[in-house]
């Protein structure tokens, strides 16, 4: 996997437009939660090879798992409207921003897979870009009408990229 697809995959997994609709308007909390998410993803990515090794999973098989999760997530996001925005004032950076909004299964799994397949650098760049888009969108216009449409685009992209991961994993040597 080369750098650009790795970055695109991570941004799609974060799905900034959809995440923005689920977050409150406290920019500081969102930025802190995004930073915490990035740190956790960096740890997961850094430990990616080790994690697959201790669980006896090869990179292609893990790709299949990631592909399935992305497809399911993409389909669910397409047909289920986002949950109500969770006010950051009620919990702050850790909850709800880091968890459950930003640190999601598909994001964590993609971070590991990208780090294993493309290296830590592309994983870090992709995660940083996706999370920065979330923070930036919250800072600008979090209730913009096009967020919903953009979320659908991202969810569709997630399905396409998930199928790509799935096929790539199944038919890898």
């Amino acid at each position, binding site marked *: 996997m080369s750098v650009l697809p790795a970055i695109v995959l991570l941004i799609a997994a974060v799905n900034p437009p959809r995440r923005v609709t689920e977050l409150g308007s406290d920019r500081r909390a969102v930025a802190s939660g995004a930073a915490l998410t990035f740190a956790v993803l960096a740890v997961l990515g850094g430990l990616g090879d080790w994690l697959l090794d201790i*669980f*006896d999973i*090869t990179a292609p098989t893990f790709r*299949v*798992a990631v592909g399935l999760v992305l497809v399911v997530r993409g389909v669910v996001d397409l047909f289920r409207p986002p949950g109500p925005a969770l006010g950051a004032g009620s919990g702050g950076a850790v909850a*709800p921003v880091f968890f459950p909004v930003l640190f999601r299964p598909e994001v964590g799994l993609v971070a590991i897979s990208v780090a294993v397949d493309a290296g830590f650098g592309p994983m870090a760049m992709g995660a940083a870009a996706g999370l920065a888009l979330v923070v930036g969108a919250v800072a600008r216009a979090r209730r913009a009408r096009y967020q919903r449409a953009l979320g659908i685009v991202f969810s569709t992209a997630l399905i396409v990229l998930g199928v790509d991961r799935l096929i790539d994993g*199944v038919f*890898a*040597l």
Partner: protein
Amino acid sequence: MNGHVTANLVNRRVRMAAIGWVAVLVVLRLFVVQPERCEDVTAAEVRAAATATVDWLIVNQDPDGRWLYRYDATANRDLGGYNNSRHSGVTFSLYSAARAGIPDALESADRGTGWLLERLVAAGGGLAMADSGAATVPIGGSALAAIALGERRLLTGDDGFDDVLRSLGRFLQSQIEPNGAVAERWDAVADAPVAGVYSPFFTGEAYFALSRLERLFPGEGWGASADAIGRYLSTERDEVENWFPAVSDHWAAYGLAETTEWRPLTDVELAYVETLGGIFGPQIRYASQRTESWFTHRTRGRQTLGAGLGTLGEGTTSLWQVARADPGAEGLLEAAAERSRCVAGLLVERQIDGTEAGSFDNQSRVRGAWFQFGVTQMDDQQHPLSALLRALPILEGAT
């Protein structure tokens, strides 16, 4: 929304998300990413396993050169039957074992060759291996006979069988159709190929055999025939012959690896190398997830035959050879080595060792062999033996 209600909502979302995380991880572990149990093995362990297999073949060889074909260990019963292709295949594997320095393999292989040579008949302008009186003859035995004798030639340098090799080659050439397809059978009455009938494996065997002849006897025209088959295999075989899913063709992989001995692969051949990798890889990963447990029986099926697992190892080791020889396939080198090591580990683990053999009535018929449902067949030794031998350079760190 007041603070209390919001806090409750957040708590509920956190709980649901935590349950979601756990559910995703558990479902993935149970059904998608089961442990791939590729045992780490050393070259010494693999060599020991290959030696045990050679010993099985030596002990279970009849004086006329044939080997025990099919055996039920539970009932301690010889199930009879025989097959020319498998006879030639075992002969080839034993010559390979001799090339790897395993004692007594050459003598056993030569006894096998003696039986094989007695079955050669004039066919297609050359010689074919055929059962006496058969109306039509499958060509697999002849192709593998050429491969076996070619292996002997590489091992010993003895040119005593060169004429036989060329005659087998001429017969195989006579079976090739204009598009590169290879007829599965030869009609003994008409002395002609049986049109329109194809085998999933004989085409690859003929490819490997003719490619080897080009390596042994360059400039005699064998390469052009091999190339025709190779092009057909790479571009249209699965569609023309309606194989779905595509043939898991370890013999084609052998042929591609053999071709790298005398020329670089073409782009379509390199693309076929990738395709074969995509066929062998998932099968190995799946096979490595299978155990004898109730759960994996239901989610992954039973463990495959020794022959089946062995062919996968033959395939990936061949791709490793291609990747090592041809820069165009270099990207497959690491993955091919990893899958080959995995197969070697699985084979060593699943082989009946001396301790396990102690619980059977006839230890000499089980020690060193691979069984499924208590039964082994000679190709359950042939393919694992070749896969183990071909994994040795990988485990020994050949560059």
